[in-house]
């Protein structure tokens, strides 16, 4: 029998320590100031909070999670609208968008080439920094971590509040970009200099790029505060008996991606500050001297005499690429590890079967994250980087498929011999697995250096990352919303609407992104406002039209989700604590959990996935249920018993 299902007593049995406030460490603590392992009680402080304190300046992780979620979903709509404009342009270049004449009277609704660059730059930026990362770590991280480890809140609730509030300046600057002179940032979400650092290089790099950098820095501050909180909470606030190897995989995914943020994000922060200096103080970290842009000398080192330039030549554009990808490659795993965790949990619960190979799953999360730090150069195979360096990045990149393979096979192993309930959450989780495979496998082509020489910056890359971030992470987010909505709002989402939403999304997602592989093979470049000026691309327009139609349908289809989400929030079916009969701790709390989350004392006896255990009659065995000596009687007292 695996150690996970032993009903042994918790490693640290709850001892009742005298009540005291967690912030004030009493004198009886040891010399290191350690509280003895056990329960810490805080007396009832159920004072009523006003609306502002409760919903705006809240320090409650659940409210902050919902703030992040609504923000993320809002930006998903905005980023989606940008995607629609992109698709319209690629299918029918320079044709006016119906109805857009009102917004852009100068052009009659036609997207200008300058605006097109801003569109995909802000689409990518918003989707990654304002949608996926805030939804996965901000919304789900905040909501799930304390509940799944059995904590009353985050370790530092105030810091948590600041984490959300750091998003406000970020949002402000991201939006402001569109209204400053020159327009929004236009150097791609990767912001490669010198296009991004030379003010005269592109209209959007006049002021928009500065806004972009400010936005990014604030997002970074927000993520950093979150990550410190998440790691501390997971390590230091687990309920008695909840060892690291009994944590749900969602928590493992969130834990490791928080570590990725802690170690990778500061480098991006440093890099964006340096780029900001290049733009404002006209330093030249990323700008070589002696350039001539639009017949104008760039600002960097303008005042210098030639002597100074001889003594120390200018900066280097590739330096930014290294710093940027040092963060942004780990960031793609920040965007998928929590999603993988959600998928594992949801597959297990709705298939009523333990996760296959829990430990290999944990180790592969760690391996993906570890390897993720040494593969950033695979975005730079054609950049002019030393080709020998390229080889080592290639080998590391190929090897990252190995832990991913372990995950995929274990998901299938989880389903094998299970009892699958096709709920909306399950449907989206299954779709995640089926489409993550597609996105992951196309990554192998790109990791192969000679092939990447051809396919780099073509639509096959666009296909790859939309399969992993949209078909992957967004579907996992949807799965997570359907699965944890009852816990968030005490009400269940409508299953009929959920299924309708799923089926259209699944079909049209593949309709949008699958044929992009073939476009990429035909050589179609990304970031082109009008590809058909090249004879090589002239025949690709029909395929693009088809894709665009699917994209419009995909977007329109989300109406089922929007209706379902808001309707269920207020009028959905009321559910109890554990509607899915799941095992993990969050289902022990009321739905929605009140102040302090748990109204019972917790003791954890086993791993999170004991479905179908022969030890009990039911097909599920919660982590907190005590078996054996207690004759099945619940150990903790319940207020109503």
């Amino acid at each position, binding site marked *: 029998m695996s150690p996970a299902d032993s009903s042994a007593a918790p490693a640290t049995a709850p001892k009742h320590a005298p009540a005291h406030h967690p912030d004030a460490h009493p004198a009886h603590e040891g010399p290191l100031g350690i509280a003895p*392992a056990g329960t810490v009680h805080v007396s009832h402080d159920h004072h009523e909070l006003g609306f502002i304190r409760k919903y705006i300046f809240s320090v409650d992780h659940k409210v902050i999670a919902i703030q992040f979620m609504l923000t993320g979903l809002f930006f998903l709509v905005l980023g989606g609208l940008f995607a629609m404009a992109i698709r319209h342009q690629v299918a029918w270049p320079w044709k006016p968008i119906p109805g857009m004449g009102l917004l852009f009277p100068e052009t009659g609704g036609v997207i200008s080439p300058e605006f097109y660059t801003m569109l995909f730059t802000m689409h990518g930026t918003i989707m990654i920094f304002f949608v996926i990362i805030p939804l996965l770590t901000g919304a789900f991280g905040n909501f799930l971590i304390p509940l799944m480890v059995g904590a*009353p809140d985050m370790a530092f609730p105030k810091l948590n509040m600041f984490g959300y509030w750091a998003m406000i300046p970020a949002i402000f600057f991201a939006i402001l970009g569109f209204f400053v002179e020159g327009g929004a940032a236009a150097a791609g979400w990767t912001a490669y200099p010198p296009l991004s650092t030379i003010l005269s290089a592109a209209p959007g790099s006049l002021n928009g790029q500065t806004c972009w950098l400010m936005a990014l820095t604030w997002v970074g501050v927000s993520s950093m505060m979150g990550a410190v909180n998440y790691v501390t909470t997971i390590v230091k*606030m687990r309920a008695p008996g909840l060892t690291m190897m009994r944590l749900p995989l969602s928590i493992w995914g969130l834990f490791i991606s928080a570590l990725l943020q802690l170690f990778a994000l500061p480098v991006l922060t440093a890099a964006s500050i340096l780029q900001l200096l290049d733009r404002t103080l006209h*330093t030249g970290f990323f700008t070589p001297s002696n350039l001539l842009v639009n017949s104008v000398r760039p600002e960097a080192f303008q005042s210098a005499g030639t002597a100074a330039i001889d003594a120390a030549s200018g900066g280097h554009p590739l330096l930014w690429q290294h710093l940027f990808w040092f963060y942004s490659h780990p960031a793609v795993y920040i965007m998928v590890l929590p999603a993988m965790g959600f998928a594992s949990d949801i597959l297990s619960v709705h298939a009523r079967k333990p996760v296959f190979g829990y430990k290999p799953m944990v180790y592969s999360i760690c391996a993906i994250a570890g390897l993720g730090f040494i593969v950033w150069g695979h975005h730079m195979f054609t950049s002019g980087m030393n080709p020998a360096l390229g080889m080592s990045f290639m080998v590391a990149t190929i090897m990252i498929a190995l832990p991913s393979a372990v995950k995929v096979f274990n998901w299938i192993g989880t389903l094998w011999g299970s009892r699958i309930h096709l709920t909306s959450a399950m449907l989206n989780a299954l779709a995640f697995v089926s489409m993550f495979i597609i996105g992951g496998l196309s990554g192998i082509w790109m990791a192969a250096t000679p092939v990447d020489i051809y396919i780099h910056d073509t639509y096959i890359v666009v296909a790859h990352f939309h399969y992993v971030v949209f078909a992957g992470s967004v579907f996992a987010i949807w799965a997570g919303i359907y699965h944890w909505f009852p816990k968030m709002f005490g009400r269940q989402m409508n299953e009929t609407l959920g299924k309708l939403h799923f089926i259209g999304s699944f079909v049209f997602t593949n309709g949008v992104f699958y044929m992009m592989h073939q476009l990429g093979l035909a050589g179609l470049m990304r970031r082109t406002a009008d590809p058909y000026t090249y004879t090589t691309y002239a025949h690709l327009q029909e395929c693009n039209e088809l894709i665009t139609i699917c994209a419009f349908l995909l977007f329109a289809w989300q109406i089922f989700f929007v209706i379902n989400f808001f309707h269920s929030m207020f009028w959905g079916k009321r559910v*109890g604590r554990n509607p899915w009969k799941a095992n993990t701790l969050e289902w022990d709390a009321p739905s929605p959990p009140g102040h302090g989350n748990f109204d*019972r004392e917790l003791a954890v006896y086993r791993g999170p996935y004991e479905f179908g255990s022969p030890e009990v009659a*039911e097909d599920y065995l919660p982590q907190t249920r005590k078996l054996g000596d207690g004759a099945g009687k619940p150990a903790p007292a319940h207020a109503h*018993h």
Partner: protein
Amino acid sequence: MSQATLAPHAGAHGHHGHKADAAAYDPAVDAPAEHHPIFDYDSGPPVERGKFAIWLFLATEVMFFTGLIGTYIILRTGSAAWPNPEERLAVDITAFNTFVLIISSWLMVRALQAAQKGDRAGILKWLGATILGGALFVGIQVYEYIELYKHGNWPNVDIFWSTFYAMTGFHGLHVVVGVIWLICAWFGAARGRYTAQNYMGLELAGLYWHFVDLVWVLLFTIVYLF
């Protein structure tokens, strides 16, 4: 809808008194207990949460400076030529400044020792000296910047100055933050916040201060000496 009957055997003798149809809302079981204590558990390594978090924070700081120092190393090794720092910078003054910062680290250790003994006057004395050391460091650095500026050496002149100002400037900002933190701790000490049993706040500030000093030793070595 199917999720209503998820489990094939909906046993009534579930734990926590879960009833047969778990999906339906039953206020008798599902309503939150009205008056309940808040359960807050401790786990993991025997470190205080705040201390644990400050280590995580310092890890991010290490990575931040890794980014800056990495930039410096790459730009310098990638440059055709690099000026001799001794010709451009007043190394002796900065060497003295480095000494000041190292001493202040030692003063901080003394402050913490005083706190461990519960000696409030000692804390105030040693911490005050630490703060003065930090302030002196910032003062000398500002003086250095002013002198450099007077000679027309500004970040936009060449890549040497760009990297010089970026690294020393961000370090300087950290010192300022550290000094402010220490000042807050000093007032805290004056109000008797630290006892022989609980001096966590002072310890955290000290950790940060030592980190800032350590980074400076590194920066001084690579920017001024090599």
